[in-house]
């Protein structure tokens, strides 16, 4: 039962992807049906798996792809199903299902010749993305995990660059691919290092070997740090986080998928899965904690000054994923990953809700800029409330799920700090500070979008009976649509609203899990003092930001100095630094290689035609047409051959 459920979570989206591509073709309904059915199937299978796993012992070896015989190594490409994989699988399945349903409306229509929606390919890629994430979380072997990891990178590249007619989308996709590739290289090398020492890549055997001390300290430290590079790449942590804000070029539902459940969660999952390895080398965990602390505060600060809603949410993701990583990094025992995973799950709910709501808003406004938004509460009350729920979850307002999970992370950090770990102090203090910042930027977003007055007024809500069927386009096209006239009614289709309600439920009530926590979350608890402190800080930030409209402007960020604001908006100019330190030397090297190739190697090739032409012109003169001359050449040739023959003999 568990076995089949775990298998189905991977197989169903894959089948949906293939069928959607093969049978969908140009016909949209088929592609949409397959994609929704595939993700729904995966969700049901994941729920079944979770139910079973909660009752029974985890299954560590599910035959999947047999064994790969690689010379002296035999690698079992098996799956495993335990509470960690099952719970994340449920989150992935839920988010994927919501995204697929949402996308049928969001990417409906054929778009324009300049910006086609290419819905079948999009839906199939999302299904593939889901399947890859499912493979990652169910892998019982690092090699199989790496396969899913890379497939996820491919799918993210395709989805971020979905609007490939835009140069910025192509650049963002390329950046996402290259930056995560740097991290993926770390994962690959880590697998090699572990394979060289432990002679196995099975996660169960590796963790057993690590806890029993069979693996050398150097091996574990190297592998741990290399894996951290992959984690930083996939989970968008400093210094490899720069791809995530740019990845907002992709369609908004894709952002929901990437940020909520699939891509960025994979990194945290990897650390949680391999926690026994990390516990054997505290150094790697300390590095992880420091990375998380930097990402947490830095991204939250950058989020405050963003003037683009999606980029704001992207920076909030970096910050929140840093919470998860920190929660795992301060753990001291094998079950210490609980708070981090708890936050991962609750974050999956509220971040998906936020992005899908943001997609609705962007869809209505036709722009992603905060300056174009405002007054949502007046025009679309339900949407505004849902957006508020998501932001409250993000800020950690009690008693929402986000509150419990964030405070659980802070509690774990506090306990680590009291146990004498300096990383615990770092995480605790930055976490509390980030709570305040999170409150500020969450409140700012709500204040601008829901309360503020838009520069571009939203069309009134009404005349539902007389409106034409609403035709939606890709976000970039909405502005043109809106410009055509306000007679277009902005009533959102049910396919876009229903997933929001569905996601609001876990956002609101995820804390209820703590009443009877499963074994995975057994160590999760919230300390009263820490919880109250964190909540107070969040509420203070929220209140401050929400009070901004009363002071004259809905945007609290204008209180910042102009220079600081620009600095924050550019994400501390990490991009510029990386461009100067890495991109420019690489480009210079490439130019050098190119000129060497062109000037030296190609020169020989290019010299052939002129040489032949000159030589041909010279030889042409020998063709005099005079028989006597030919006879002379004949004699000369004979003499030369004779002399050569005599000389050589």
């Amino acid at each position, binding site marked *: 039962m568990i076995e089949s459920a775990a298998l189905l979570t991977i197989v169903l989206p894959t089948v949906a992807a293939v069928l959607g591509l093969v049978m969908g073709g140009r016909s949209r309904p088929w592609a949409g049906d397959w994609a929704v059915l595939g993700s729904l199937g995966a969700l049901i299978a994941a729920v079944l798996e979770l139910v079973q796993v909660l009752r029974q012992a985890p299954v560590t070896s599910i035959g999947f792809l047999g064994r790969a015989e690689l010379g002296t190594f035999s690698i079992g490409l098996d799956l495993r199903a335990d509470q960690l994989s099952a719970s994340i699988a449920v989150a992935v399945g839920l988010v994927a299902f919501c995204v697929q349903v949402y996308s049928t409306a969001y990417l409906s229509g054929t778009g324009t010749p300049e910006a086609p929606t290419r819905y079948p390919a999009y839906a199939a890629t999302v299904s593939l993305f889901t399947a890859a994430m499912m493979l990652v979380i169910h892998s019982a072997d690092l090699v199989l995990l790496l396969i899913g990891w890379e497939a996820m990178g491919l799918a993210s590249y395709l989805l971020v660059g979905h609007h490939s007619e835009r140069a910025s989308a192509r650049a963002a996709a390329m950046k996402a691919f290259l930056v995560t590739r740097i991290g993926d290289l770390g994962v690959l090398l880590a697998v090699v290092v572990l394979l060289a020492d432990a002679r196995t890549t099975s996660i169960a055997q590796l963790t057993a070997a690590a806890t029993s001390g069979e693996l050398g300290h150097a091996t574990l430290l190297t592998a741990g740090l290399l894996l951290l590079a992959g984690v930083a790449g996939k989970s968008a942590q400093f210094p490899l986080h720069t791809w995530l804000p740019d990845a907002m070029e992709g369609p908004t539902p894709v952002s929901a998928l990437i940020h909520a459940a699939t891509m960025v969660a994979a990194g945290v999952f990897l650390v949680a899965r391999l926690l026994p390895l990390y516990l054997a080398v505290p150094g790697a965990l300390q590095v992880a904690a420091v990375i998380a602390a930097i990402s947490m505060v830095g991204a939250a600060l950058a989020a405050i000054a963003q003037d683009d809603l999606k980029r704001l949410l992207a920076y909030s993701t970096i910050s929140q994923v840093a919470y998860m990583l920190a929660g795992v990094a301060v753990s001291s025992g094998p079950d210490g990953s609980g708070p981090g995973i708890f936050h991962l799950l609750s974050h999956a709910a509220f971040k998906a809700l936020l992005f899908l709501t943001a997609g609705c808003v962007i869809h209505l406004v036709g722009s992603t800029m905060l300056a174009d938004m405002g007054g949502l509460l007046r025009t679309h009350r339900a949407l505004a409330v849902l957006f508020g729920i998501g932001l409250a979850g993000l800020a950690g307002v009690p008693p929402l799920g986000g509150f419990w999970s964030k405070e659980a992370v802070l509690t774990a950090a506090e306990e680590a700090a009291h146990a004498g770990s300096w990383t615990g102090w770092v995480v605790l203090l930055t976490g509390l500070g980030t709570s305040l910042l999170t409150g500020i930027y969450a409140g700012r977003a709500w204040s601008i979008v829901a309360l503020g007055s838009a520069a571009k007024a939203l069309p009134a809500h009404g005349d539902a009976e007389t409106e034409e069927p609403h035709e939606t386009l890709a976000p970039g096209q909405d502005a043109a649509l809106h410009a055509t006239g306000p007679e277009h009614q902005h009533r959102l289709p049910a396919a876009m609203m229903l997933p929001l309600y569905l996601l609001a439920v876990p956002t609101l009530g995820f804390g209820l899990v703590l009443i009877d926590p499963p074994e995975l979350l057994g160590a999760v608890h919230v300390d009263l003092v820490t919880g109250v402190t964190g909540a107070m800080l969040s509420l203070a930030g929220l209140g401050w930001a929400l009070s901004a409209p009363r002071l004259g402007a809905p945007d609290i960020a204008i209180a910042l100095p102009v220079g600081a604001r620009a600095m924050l908006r550019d994400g501390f100019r990490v991009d510029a630094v990386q461009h100067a330190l890495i991109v420019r030397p690489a480009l210079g090297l490439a130019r050098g290689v190119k000129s060497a190739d062109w000037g030296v190697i190609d020169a020989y090739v290019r010299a052939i035609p002129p040489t032949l032409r000159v030589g041909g012109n010279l030889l*042409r*003169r020998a*063709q*005099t*047409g*005079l*028989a*006597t001359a030919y*006879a*002379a050449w004949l*004699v000369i040739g004979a003499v030369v051959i004779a002399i050569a023959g005599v000389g050589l003999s």
Partner: protein
Amino acid sequence: MIHLIGPAVLASALAGIGVYGLLARRNAVLVLIGAELLLNAANLLLVTAAALPAGGLAAMPGPGAAPPTEIADPLLSGQVMAIFVITIAAAEIGVALAIILLLFRARQTADLTEVGELGEASPIGVARAAAEQPSGGPS
């Protein structure tokens, strides 16, 4: 008793004369005469070599020793080759003269310097092309 160096030098002289005839003559038939002389030079050398004992020059004894008498080459390669060369020369001159007749019939001349049209940059070809350019037109 005969020194073989005499026929060898005669053959060389004939070859030189033949080359001169080949290169210095304009009349096609006379050029052929030069070619015949070259062929005869080769023939003379073949016949001379046929007079050598078995094993060729390597088997010659040193100066002063009695010259070998036995002939070990039952195939008589040198002489037979010479006969073959004569035959081939006959065939060659037949075909060559037929070509010259054809040339004469077409051009009313057997002068080789006047039939250089096949040359890429021959003065004749260039001159003829220049002469034909105005009348030929862009056909």
